[in-house]
């Protein structure tokens, strides 16, 4: 594998020090493949590889020399607009380091904020040396109170503050694309709570633009222009979201993991809805 340095935006530049030495080459290759697929492929959903931002605690340095070695999981995002007008989300995420495979099914209203509608389900399966096999739960909102029910018991996971809108974490990308983000940035006094893993409520989230970044893709002699945003707040260290010019989500980078698009739908469901 070539080992020439790749210039990465600081928000996902995990390619030195204690981090994966070849992170730059890996993310560039994934982005190059995604860049091609944006033009050529047609898939019903979007699939992301999860790269570790640090090798510590994950794998030995030798194990991360290959694509197979560095990828620690996969995220599949599917959402379609149903006959009820709501957006139906079907999220699957696996993490080979923690051993968790989680699935989230939820609906959102057809509004710019992608507010949750009705109940949702969480199903996680655990595969490690422990005896815990997984969790099944149902989430609900009752006015400002958010709860999940598992093993027949209901646990409150948080409360919305007055006027606060609730947005599932994996609907944030659509929320950003819808124009709600611009409204928030321009000073609309809306408050947002993000529902992470559909079971952790993060109140008082702030949202800031990162501007444009032209990511060079030397493996295909091209580059890709991306628009970035930072999401952060109480209980939520910064998460950086990067979009292609047509609104497709390309990269999500949190403290410990970076999701990078593998394949992309040529039919953006957001665009199809005319939002």
């Amino acid at each position, binding site marked *: 594998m070539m080992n020439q340095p790749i210039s990465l935006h600081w928000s996902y530049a995990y390619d030195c020090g204690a981090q994966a030495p070849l992170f730059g080459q890996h993310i560039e290759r994934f982005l190059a493949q995604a860049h091609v697929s944006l033009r050529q492929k047609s898939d019903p959903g979007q699939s992301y590889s999860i790269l570790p931002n*640090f090798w510590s605690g994950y794998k030995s340095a030798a194990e991360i020399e290959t694509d197979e070695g560095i990828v620690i999981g996969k995220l599949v995002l599917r959402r379609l607009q149903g006959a009820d007008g709501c957006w139906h989300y079907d999220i699957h995420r696996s993490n080979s*380091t923690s051993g968790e495979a989680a699935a989230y099914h939820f609906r959102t209203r057809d509004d710019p904020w992608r507010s949750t509608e009705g109940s949702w389900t969480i199903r996680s399966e655990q595969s490690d040396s*422990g005896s815990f096999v997984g969790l099944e739960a149902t989430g609900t909102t009752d006015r400002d109170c958010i709860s999940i029910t598992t*093993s027949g*018991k209901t*646990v409150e*996971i948080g409360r919305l503050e007055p006027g606060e809108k609730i947005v599932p974490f994996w609907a944030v990308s659509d929320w950003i694309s819808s124009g709600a983000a611009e409204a928030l940035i321009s000073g609309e006094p809306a408050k947002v709570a993000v529902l992470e893993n559909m079971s952790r409520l993060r109140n008082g989230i702030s949202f800031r633009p990162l501007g444009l970044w032209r990511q060079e893709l030397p493996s295909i002699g091209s580059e890709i222009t991306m628009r970035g945003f930072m999401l952060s707040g109480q*209980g939520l260290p910064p998460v950086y979201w990067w979009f292609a010019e047509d609104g497709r989500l390309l990269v999500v980078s949190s403290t410990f993991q970076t999701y990078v698009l593998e394949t992309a739908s040529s039919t953006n469901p957001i665009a199809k809805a005319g939002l």
Partner: protein
Amino acid sequence: MSHNVLFISVDQLTAATIANRNDCLSIPNINSLAANGICFDRAYCSDPACAPARSTWMTGLFPSEIGTVFNGAPVFDDVVDLGSVLRGAGCRPVHAGKWHVEGRDVHDSFDVLFYGQRQIEAGAGEFYDVSTTHAAMAFLLNQAAESAPFFLHASYVNPHDICEFQHSFEDKPPPELTALGLLDESWLPKLPDNFNFDPREIVSQRVMRRGGDALIHGPIEARLQHWNTMQWRAMTWHYHRFIERVDTEIGLLLDALAQSGLADDTVIVFSSDHGESNGHHRMFQKFTLYEESIRVPLIIASLGSWSFGEKGRRNDTYLVSGADMMPTLCTLLGVAVPAGLPGRSIVPALSQTDAAEPETVYVECNYWSRALVDLRWKYVYEYMPNGDGSDATPPRNATHARGLEELYDLIADPGETVNLAYDRGHTAVIERFRVRADQVEADRRSRPLTDPRAVETARRWGDALLAYWQKHPELDAMRSRNEAPLLNRYHSPSTP
């Protein structure tokens, strides 16, 4: 006494963060725990590093007694651990999350709910902690009330993720998030009052933790000395977010306990393996004997009935050691405390305001340095390597010469900004602590390291210390303390 015990541990949470009101941090669930029990404000880890501190929790012995004198050094095979003791007494030991007791397989003595695909060591609380909560919740919600007493250890990684985040900046400066418009300055915590430090530190601290050549995390040490104020403050802002993150997990777990029907018969113990410097003394991380690094939160609480008097009290006079954890857990579970442990149960201090209070608490650090703390003073000392095979046995006064010393008046100078060890007016205090150190060390059963990698690390660190001493002959004058060579060259207590 026979309760279930839910031991909630976090990683790298300094006591000061929760002891003081902080408008830049929201931790309602940890605060709720404090309101439902007793908070011990003077609790100290046995050693400010993950594996040594956790090994003390799980064995009741100090690092110098069990082989885990730093991260990477395994516990001796013949040391009995908490899981074995509890199981032998008919109690069910259960574990979920980070373990990091080197050389000891948690599966050997605990029922393991969740462990990750690899042993969880440093970082990645971002996703490990979610599974830890789910596993512990499922256990509590499906536990029959009449089953045998259990000890459930929900062992979280965060806020340790701050360490890996800092490592992002070993070869580049952190982004200036305020200048970029990504954070508002008003959100950032202020620099701590003790951002600066008295440079008359012990040699071990200088060699291990200061400058780009520091043996522990030198690359990031080199970088952060060039950070501007906003970069330091932004790093603390990040630390707070990781704390809030684990606070959310704790909240879910507590809600599950409340719904489980077990709350009345379950005592909750909450603590951290060690602290975090968090910008104090121009440092991040731990591996140092300043309060931010060695002082940890300790709360004992119940969401249900409670036989230990009024809830919501704080005890700021009872000195607790990490070595007290195992005797305390055994006592709460109604299990006999193994003989010969250096610590003691703090259960009597839960209900008695006149419980006999320990005179001092003892802390080991980076193999070569130690601290003794009482209610007013902190005495820091170190040993000089012999440069031979004797260095493979944890040093003490009987085998090694003492090096430099530090003395802080924790009442007049809680930020530890003025080292009084070279002030003639405090000679008697120093002498008292030297005697006390001899007494404490006489009670320790220090054992030679046997693991070849651990022996090599001790030797390598010892060589670096000897090289520093040889390069700085002026330190001999400080060591002799027959004069006060550096007093007033820095700052006096009146002008910190």
